[in-house]
Structure formats: C-alpha cells, structure tokens
C-alpha cells in the first residue's frame, strides 16, 4: 500500500527567493525505512516538515503540488489532523521540549494528553517508549537537566508513544555516542518491521546504508536519486551533490571491487569484507 505520495511538490519559504523544494515526486510503501541524504540546505529538513504539514501550514510560503499522507492531502488538513498519522522528531531536541512539563515522564505524556488517550493506556505507552529508548532511569528528571543525547532519546520516545503510523526523524542521533546511535537505529528498525513507515534524514552514511530500504538523495531542492543504498552509493557523482558514500563503499570504489555479479559496490562492513576477502576468511 502506498503510504506516502508526493507529486511535483514545490515550496518556497516566505522572504526567500529560491525554491527550497523543486518539483519533488516520490512514493513510499507502508513499512519502508527511507533514508534522506543530501548536503546541508539541500531540502532535507524542509521535506521532513512537509510530511507533517508544518510546511506549509506553520511556515506559510508558496506551495505547489501535492503531499498525500495515508490518503490525506496535507494542504487540505490541519497540522492537528495530520499529527494523528505522522510524528516528527526535530533536528535539535531542544526545540521539541514543551517547556511546560517538570519531568521526562510527563513530557512524554504531553502528546498523549493532547490525543485524549486514557490514563491506563498512557502509562502503558510511556513505559514502552521509556524502555525502548532506555531512558527509564531518568524519568523523574527535568527535561532540561538531560544531556544532549538523553534529550534526543526523550524526543524520540515522546513521538513513539503517540504510536503514529509514520515517523519522520531529522538527524535523530546527532548527539548520541556510537553505541547510542546504533541502539536508536535498531529501535527504529524494529518499529519499521512492525509496519510503521519511517523517513529519516541523516549524515551518517554507514548507518543509512545498513538500515534503510531505500535512499532519497536531494540536492538543491530536487530529487537526484531514489533507490536502494547500493545503487545510490555506487553513483560516480556523489561528490558533486555534496555527499560522501559510506567508508566501505569509498574503499571498494578506489580498489574497483564490485559486489559479485553486480555493477554495485559494497555499502556495509560485511559486504566489504566479503568482497575484499581478508586473511581472516
């Protein structure tokens, strides 16, 4: 089932002369884990905001084309309506904190209160989200007393608790240590396996290659490519679009080692090891 359909989306922020998104079209199936990559200012964050209706309803500006989220055309529905289907985790977790709650636990409850979820169900969902993101030990702390990484986990937990069918995450692991990033990517992958559709913008290409079903490459507000990681990362022109392939791909490209029987280079550690055939094998 097509969960997200974007057709010829064009968008310009107020006071800006340039299109932030220029004729963007793609379709996403339910349960897909989609990675969005591209240099800064290529349109990744704007695209994320367009999935939840903040573009155009909050930012205003000039808007053309269509975004259809699970049958709802974003332009014709309020952010409140759309928020029942899609949750977004902002790039800077600080932006996401309500400022009206005294503890992490209550902060995660905020979205649920607004959805009118029953108390018993709220408790279930909050505990689930706290455990999934491994922040249960901090549940009584003030949201502002957390480290950057803990705050980021809380921001993700507060969206997951709302059980959206689609989750959009804008660089959700930028402040986490490597182990923490790995945990968060795994948690998100689990959700996607349960049928939740995931759109994630990120610069950590090794993680994107490992976890995403497909990669959307943006540059200058346009879609350059939308394909499986090995196709996108095997392109010769990534540098021109301001992105780097995963380390493993770059090494294999330089050594001209393709995956057996294909025209693609390895994108993960395991694939690279297989192709480079080390002494350890």
């Amino acid at each position, binding site marked *: 089932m097509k969960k997200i359909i974007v057709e010829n989306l064009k968008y310009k922020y107020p006071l800006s002369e340039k299109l932030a998104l220029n004729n963007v079209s793609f379709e996403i199936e339910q349960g897909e884990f989609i990675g969005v990559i591209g*240099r800064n200012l290529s349109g990744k964050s704007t695209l994320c905001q367009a999935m939840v209706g903040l573009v155009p309803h909050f930012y205003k500006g000039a808007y053309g084309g269509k975004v259809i989220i699970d049958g709802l055309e974003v332009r014709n529905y309020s952010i409140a309506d759309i928020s029942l289907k899609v949750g977004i985790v902002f790039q800077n977790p600080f932006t996401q904190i309500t400022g009206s709650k005294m503890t992490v636990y209550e902060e995660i409850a905020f979205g649920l209160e607004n959805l009118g979820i029953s108390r018993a169900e709220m408790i279930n969902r909050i505990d689930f989200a706290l455990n999934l993101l491994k922040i249960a030990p901090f549940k009584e702390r003030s949201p502002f007393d957390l480290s950057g990484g803990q705050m980021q986990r809380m921001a993700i937990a507060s969206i997951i608790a709302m059980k959206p069918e689609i989750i959009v995450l804008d660089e959700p692991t930028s402040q986490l240590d490597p182990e923490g990033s790995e945990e968060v990517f795994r948690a998100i992958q689990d959700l996607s396996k349960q049928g939740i559709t995931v759109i994630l913008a990120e610069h950590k290409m090794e993680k994107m290659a490992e976890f995403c079903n497909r990669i959307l490459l943006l540059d200058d507000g346009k879609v350059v490519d939308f394909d499986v990681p090995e196709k996108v990362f095997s392109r010769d022109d990534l540098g021109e679009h301001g992105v780097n392939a995963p380390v493993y791909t770059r090494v294999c490209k330089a050594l001209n080692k393709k995956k057996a029987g294909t025209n693609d280079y390895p994108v993960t550690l395991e694939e690279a090891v297989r192709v480079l055939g080390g002494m350890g094998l």
Partner: protein
Amino acid sequence: MITVSNLSYAYQKGNPVLIDIHLNIDQRSTAIIGQNGAGKTTFVKLLKGLLKPFEGEVFIQNQQVKNRTAAELAKIIGLVFQNPNDQIFKNKVLDEVMFGPLNMGIDKQQATENAMEALEMVGLHDKLDMNPHDLSLSEKKLLCIASVVAMDTNIIILDEPTIAQDYQGKETIKKVIKTLKEKNKLVMTIIHDMDFVAENFERTIVFNEGKVILDGDTRFVFAQKDILKSAHVEAPEITKLGEKLGYRKTFLTIEEFIDYKNQERNL
C-alpha cells in the same frame, strides 16, 4: 600545557562524575572520547574553570585554575559549546564573533580583524549582518567556532564540532583545526565521530565512568579493541574494516588502507 593531578568531581555527594584523573596535556591535538555520561564535558568545564574541583589540581600554562577567575582563564582557553543556542546571544553574526575579543580588552580594529579572519575560515564572511538565529544549525555551529577562534586563545576546545555538519562542513572544520595547529595552538575536542578523530587528532584519551582508561597516540588507542569495547566506544569504520580483514596494521584513514592494498597487490 595543561597538568591535571588527582582530580575528582561530583555534582551530588556520593555520586562522583570524575575520579582521580591524572593527565599531562601537551601540544598534540587531543580528542576525548567515551560514552555519554562518561565525564567528558565535566572534565572540560573544570579545565575552563567553569566548575571548581572537588579534589585535586588543574594547572594551565603553569597557572592554578582554582585561583583564577573564569574571565582570566577565558584569555587562555576557549570552549565551543555543544549546543550553539547556549552560546549565541547577539543579533548580528559579526557582533557575535566580536563579543569575545572586545570583552578581553582587544581594541576594536584588532577585534574586527580577528572576527573577519575567523568568519572567513568558517565561510560565514558573507553573512555578517544576518541574525545568528536565522542561520541553519550547522552554520550556527560554525559561527560558534569562529567566535572562539577570534579570541585567539592558546587552547581551544571543541565540544562535538561535527554535529549537523555535512561533508563540506566537516572539511571546513578540518581546515580550521589544521590552521590552528599551524599557529601552535592546542586543539582539543570532545567527540563521538571516530572517523573524524582518526583523521584529525594526534592523541586520544578515552573516558569511562569518570576515569581515564586509555590514553595515547590515536593509532595506538584505536588498536586496543578490548578496552574500547569495555568503554562502549567503537573504532573508526576504516579501522574496523582492516581488523575484520585480519590485518595487523591499524588503519586510520581510507587513503592509508587503499595505499596498503595497492602495495599488497604489487608484491
């Protein structure tokens, strides 16, 4: 340049964040790595005199930190915050970068020169009149780096400099670090981006649960697989690849690996 002896610190009694740290930090560019909550940021705040040690001493260029005010220390040691919103408060890019130098008593002309040079380094010299809050997160981060660079301190500490940076942004920060090294500044960083550490920092110190558990030449540190694992730290991607392929050598950059492979082929 920095001597730390017997340093301990706790925010709450009975819950130590740093335990008995002994370190001699010299001119080598130095990365501090470790899990969230390992005590890295607390350590840096102690160096800068923003926190006072519970126990132990910190000397910076032979000055005892606890006897100096944060203002005095600001002339020697600069810190770029992890979250740019904690640092930015002026409404123009140029004013933001000039604030530090002016406050240190540098005259206006020199301060402007410092600021322009720093802004040029990070590529924001064409945005002087913009409101910093209208910049993107990655640009804000670069602005914060410029603000500290303009203060021309001998020691510069970058807290998570590569957050939100794309390929180009990382290259810019690499260049800044290189320039600072050439000016004989001590550049330190707290960072989770191991690939960036391997490419740019000579020495690496690993913190775990408030203690220094590994310290040395970056290549040596990333070869200590088991200790890294116990600190929940991963080696750089290229190091992991070399290791998985069974090579004895510890690789720190893609170029090293490719050269090695090509030589191997020619043998």
